[in-house]
């Protein structure tokens, strides 16, 4: 019998039935994540249908993150809807202001994602959680609604695409550069209905944070989910949450390795890259596959630098950016905003003196929120303005009507803030 991929193993283990031949898999869900933009609509519909129930309050996790603190009456209502619902159904893992952070940063940080899990959320960047060797996919509000009500979701059998990333990344080149490079290779449609499996020595040496950055942007190539195999790095990250479950880290690893793809598993496509000569990358235009090297874009003027989001607002990202900024001032020609993605990241950055570095350099440090990433609050661009951003989408108007977004790594964003225009970071010597 032929071997199976990580995603196929997860599908097998979670299959409820195939009600329409082989076409559609109804899967049992281990976790349903919720935020205040797409969930209230699902809640309203459940209430209207007389089905205001949840399948299992312990498997539902909810956060107010997109606009927090609320910026107007409408966003206050969205927060209230989620808050009231979480209380009404005894959802204990609900994170309200003061304890809230960007969904795809705070849920992994709380240990809510494990290897082999199935996860859905009404948010396209749910693919982030595949970094743990889980199958995690973004869905619309109706799929979310059924997930909340019944703990199931439908998926077509995914096509599998494997990436073998070899070599070692040069200094100053990060997982953000890797994923921008891969999206350019694939185009924005190249992985539609596919699970993108990231493997190879480059992945093996990446931290969980870096793997999350990579998987976060699978959707920008159309991918259903990005996944990495669980390994000792995964176990170390999860250890505080799983130490009661396992006698040792080795035991945990042995258990989790069952999800690693079999060597003889079949793929729709396998792509190999040696990334030893990769350069820092940046987007131009308004599609995430419009990618050039930073070198080619050097000198592009910028009005705002934004460091944050579910892509690159984690502690590692702040450390890299602060390391470059330390002792310097951002250019007078632009403004800088840093949004640590969760309260824990914020506290850590405070302890390590990173917040002070950002503030001394002239950055505004905001509370954890999605904020400017989707152009709803906390740093919306004016017409004609340009933002150098560590986020994941450069769509027309994404950070404000008439604004332009250049996606890049935290290192490039930090160097750009100081130079006042797009430049490579001093860490990259290429």
């Amino acid at each position: 019998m032929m071997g199976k991929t990580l995603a196929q193993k997860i599908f097998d283990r979670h299959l409820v039935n195939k009600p329409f031949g082989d076409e559609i898999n109804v899967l049992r869900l281990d976790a349903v994540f919720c935020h205040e933009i797409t969930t209230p609509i699902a809640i309203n519909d459940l209430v209207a249908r007389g089905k205001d129930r949840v399948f299992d309050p312990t498997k539902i996790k909810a956060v107010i993150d997109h606009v927090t603190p609320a910026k107007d009456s409408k966003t206050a209502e969205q927060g209230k809807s989620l808050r009231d619902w979480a209380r009404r159904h005894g959802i204990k893992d609900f994170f309200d202001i003061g304890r809230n952070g960007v969904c795809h940063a705070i849920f992994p940080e709380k240990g809510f994602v494990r290897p082999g899990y199935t996860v859905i959320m009404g948010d396209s960047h749910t693919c982030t959680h595949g970094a743990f060797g889980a199958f995690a996919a973004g869905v619309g509000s109706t799929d979310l609604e059924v997930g909340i009500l019944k703990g199931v979701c439908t998926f077509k059998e995914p096509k599998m695409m494997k990436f073998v990333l070899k070599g070692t990344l040069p200094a100053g080149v990060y997982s953000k550069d890797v994923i921008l490079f891969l999206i350019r290779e694939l185009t924005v449609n190249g992985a539609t209905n596919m699970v993108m499996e990231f493997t190879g020595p480059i992945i093996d040496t990446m931290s969980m944070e870096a793997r999350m950055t990579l998987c976060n942007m699978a959707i920008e190539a159309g991918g259903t989910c990005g996944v990495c195999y669980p390994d000792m790095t995964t176990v170390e990250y999860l250890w505080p949450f799983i130490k009661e479950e396992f006698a040792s880290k080795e035991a945990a690893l042995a258990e989790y390795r069952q999800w690693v793809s079999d060597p003889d598993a079949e793929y729709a496509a396998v792509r190999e890259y040696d990334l030893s000569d990769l350069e820092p990358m940046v987007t131009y235009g308004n599609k995430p596959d419009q990618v050039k090297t930073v070198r080619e874009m050097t000198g592009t003027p910028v009005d705002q630098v934004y460091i944050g989001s579910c892509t690159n607002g984690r502690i590692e990202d702040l450390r890299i950016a602060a390391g470059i900024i330390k002792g310097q001032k951002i250019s007078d020609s632009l403004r800088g905003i840093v949004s640590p993605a969760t309260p824990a990241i914020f506290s850590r950055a405070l302890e390590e003196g990173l917040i002070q570095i950002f503030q001394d350099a002239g950055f505004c440090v905001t509370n954890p929120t999605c904020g400017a990433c989707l152009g709803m609050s906390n740093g919306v661009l004016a017409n004609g303005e340009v933002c150098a951003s560590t986020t994941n989408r450069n769509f027309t108007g994404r950070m404000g009507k008439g604004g332009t977004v250049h996606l890049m790594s935290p290192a490039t964003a930090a160097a750009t803030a100081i130079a006042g225009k797009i430049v490579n970071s001093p860490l990259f010597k290429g």
Partner: protein
Amino acid sequence: MKNFKGKALFLDRSDINTDEIIPAKYLTESSKAALKPYLLEDLEISGFNPRTDIGGKAVIVTRANFGCGSSREHAPWALEVNGINVVIAENFARIFRQNMYNCGMMAIEMAPDQIAYLFDQYADRDCEIEVDVDKGVVKIAAGDQKDCIPVKIADFDKCLVKAGGWVEYADRNY
């Protein structure tokens, strides 16, 4: 079942994303109807004006990868409240496609050469399109010209279109 017949709007571009279909700033609206004036507000295609070109249309014909980007179901809803229940394209982003069927709407795939043919023959004309769900065909007509193109509609998708969506089906069966 929803209405799958009416005048067509041709959008000659690939990769039209959900931010272009309905910008994020309108995601704070809590009713579908409130989205109506903002459909395709940020879509920049030469010759296309969302204020004058959407009214009276029931079907969109476009190129590849329609609906890429965010998971927002506001995208199909913004179409729905404008009376557009069908999008025909070379292919769709996964989440958008599922959202359409989950709402009882249709995202129909055609081969690139068929889409090219539609643009070629019909884009500049006053043209009417009808989807026959049971027969699995798309009928196009403008003046004397008529075409009837067979399309694949999966059983699951058909079931969702007929049931008017996924919620009732799932609650009954799981």
